[in-house]
């Protein structure tokens, strides 16, 4: 099937992301990539758990001193909601409704940016209130590396969505760009799942000492 063929909502295939061979390859390859990413984050989580609260002297702040659940709750809600809005976007993609897909993706990007803003505020807060920095202790290094890797993934995900939106603004959906939108949203879900684990392992477990 030709990648640039024009469709109507009637002729648009049921799974446009997997209709071409290229799309099928990308779909599978990306799932495998996410498998590798899972191991990457597992290694980072293990490192964090081994170094949690490992500080050179008593005057360093520990997890229980710093973390505040209200802030993290807001961040969690923002990111979980953005996952939901990206599902809406994919729903409209599958229904060949380009305008609505765009709208929901823009909302997704907005929520992601808000999350990122809170994260920057949070890091800034720890650095200035608690002198908890990347170089102050092994705990600091492992905390900023784990949460920072996730933050970097958010930045990449946002950049990806924006690039796709800009590139395709005026040309609508076809079988060439449908897999691209789908993969970006898969990536976004993955980031969301990782955050659920960060919320649990870093913040909730941090609150109980």
């Amino acid at each position, binding site marked *: 099937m030709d990648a640039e063929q024009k469709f109507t909502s009637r002729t648009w295939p049921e799974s446009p992301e997997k209709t071409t061979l290229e799309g099928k390859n990308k779909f599978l390859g990306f799932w495998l990539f996410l498998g590798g990413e899972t191991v990457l984050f597992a290694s980072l989580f293990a490192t964090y758990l081994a*170094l949690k609260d490992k500080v050179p002297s008593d005057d360093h702040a520990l997890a229980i001193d710093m973390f505040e659940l209200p802030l993290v709750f807001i961040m969690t809600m923002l990111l979980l909601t953005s996952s939901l809005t990206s599902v809406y976007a994919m729903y409209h993609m599958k229904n060949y409704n380009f305008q609505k897909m765009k709208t929901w993706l823009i909302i997704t990007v907005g929520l992601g940016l808000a999350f990122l803003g809170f994260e920057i505020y949070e890091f800034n807060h720890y650095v200035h209130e608690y002198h908890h920095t990347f170089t102050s202790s*092994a705990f600091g290094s492992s905390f900023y590396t784990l949460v920072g890797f996730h933050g970097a993934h958010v930045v990449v995900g946002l950049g990806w969505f924006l690039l796709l939106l800009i590139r395709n603004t005026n040309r609508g959906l076809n079988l060439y760009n449908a897999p691209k939108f789908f993969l970006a949203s898969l990536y976004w879900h993955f980031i969301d799942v990782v955050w659920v684990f960060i919320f649990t392992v870093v913040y909730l477990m941090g609150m109980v000492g």
Partner: protein
Amino acid sequence: MSTVAQKQGFLAVLWDYLTTVDHKKIAILYLISGGFFFLVGGIEAMIIRIQLAVPDNNFVSAGLYNEILTMHGTTMIFLAAMPLLFAFMNAVVPLQIGARDVAFPFLNSLGFWLFFFGGIFLNLSWFLGGAPDAGWTSYASLSITSEGHGIDFYVLGLQISGAGTLIAGINFLVTIINMRAPGMTYMRMPLFTWSTFVASALILFAFPPLTVGLFLMLFDRMFGANFFDVSMGGNTIIWEHLFWIFGHPEVYILILPAFGIFSEIFATFSRKRLFGYAAMVFATVLIGFLGFMVWAHHMFTVGLGPTANAIFAVATMAIAVPTGVKIFNWMLTMWGGSIVFTTPMLYAVAFIPSFTAGGVTGVMLASAAADYQYHDTYFVVAHFHYVIVGGVVLGLLAGTHFYWPKMFGTMLNEFLGKITFWLFLIGFHATFFVQHFLGLMGMPRRIWKFLDGQGLNLFNLISTIGAVFMAVAVLVLVYNIIITQIKNVRVGNDPWGDGRTLEWAIASPPPFYNFKQLPLVRGLDPYWIEKMEGNTKMTPAEPVGDIHMPNNSFIPFVMSLGLFIAAFGAMYQVDWRASDGESFVWAIPVLIIGLLITLGSMAVRSLKDDHGYHIHKEDLLKDDEGGRE
């Protein structure tokens, strides 16, 4: 992008290879650069053996010796063995499954260039202030205090080439899952394809821990983090765990494809189908699975406790079972076959006892209590050289002879090939067999010099003489390759006469689109089946039609170059900060420019549509009449 063959100038050929996305050309790139690094690693090995030839020798200084032994291990594993295996995987696997290319031709090229620039970066350390010197395992307790930039070269170089390897692994997985020809079910896939499949899965799950370990080391050494600094709450054992969670599967990533190559060779030159095909597949998968369960056997003496040591010891010994299954299946493949002792077959036959010896010492080392005695002695050096040289390198040499005609359309000289084989086999056993005893006599691993009068003189000398044999063997091979390519005697599609799998059904080298019509696979060893029914060609599964091909691209090269440039910036910003901004002011700008080149070329790749092109049916038919280039 013309399909018309023409004489090309050197620059045109160079440009073609810099931009190619054809798996067969990428295979050649992997073969050449892997071969180059193999020679570099071999020279380093020779220097080690010369230094240890006689007691109290001063051929190289202690510091330089540490750098050479580190670079020997690092180069051989990451820059020689893996790329050479990727060369054969790229050359053969798409053909074996009846595909026109890999699933992601662009990523295939990107994977190669990342490996290439990572390898070059690592080796530039020789010219820029000294190579890494903490051993190929680069344990953190040693490496974070290593002075100069040696370890930085190790970290950044492996990070770049490791990304390339991960990409290659995903690519092969998707290729094998999605691109098989009609009728090529999983249980009809040749063993080399199966072992590539399992090795790729291992790459996918084993490389991310290395990535993380290297990042932690990078942050510690270059950005002031404290992961491994005990005085700041850090823990150096984290590096050991991350490294070996990668490092142990890594040895299976190396050996499984070699097993695959041998399986093809045994079946071909015994003129029998592989004995116990299903058991072989099962054993391959099982080895891959167990390979992830045993990393702590490298850390028995760390003090993880008797329970952990016992679990990892038993898991390690369990791997001997599927490996034993394979050994017996290879022998039973030969049983009753009409065997032809070609050069590849000689390697295959010699591989069985050599590798088994390495396996036996492996089981000895797996016994945690005894390991306290063997740990960090030459016994370990003997063991892993028996499995890696006796398994992987023999596999690579066998594969070079076996697949050379398919890759280049010429046949390596069999007489010279057999000379190489005998020299190499004798040299290999002379070098490493005695090292078992050196180890049991107490000679520590990685030692710079040993003293006279400790009973170590004779075996060390024998070991060095053996290494000379191996060096001569490799030189004969290089000579063989050169004269073969100069003579340039072309061969047909099935030069060994007994090819069983799909790659032997098409021309050597194959046309750039591989199969004009995708073949119909009717069972295991599909080409053999057709031959037994008197056919000279595969039964096609489709009529002749337009073939979709990917466009060449220079972007992978630029993307990798960007990271290569950025790595210099990341490394020298340490000096910039140490000098309070006085010198190395270019470091941060270079880091940013490098990253922008990479990110920019990624954006270009994303924004610019690339639909590839079609070869038209008429041109394909014309190709038939005029013969191919």
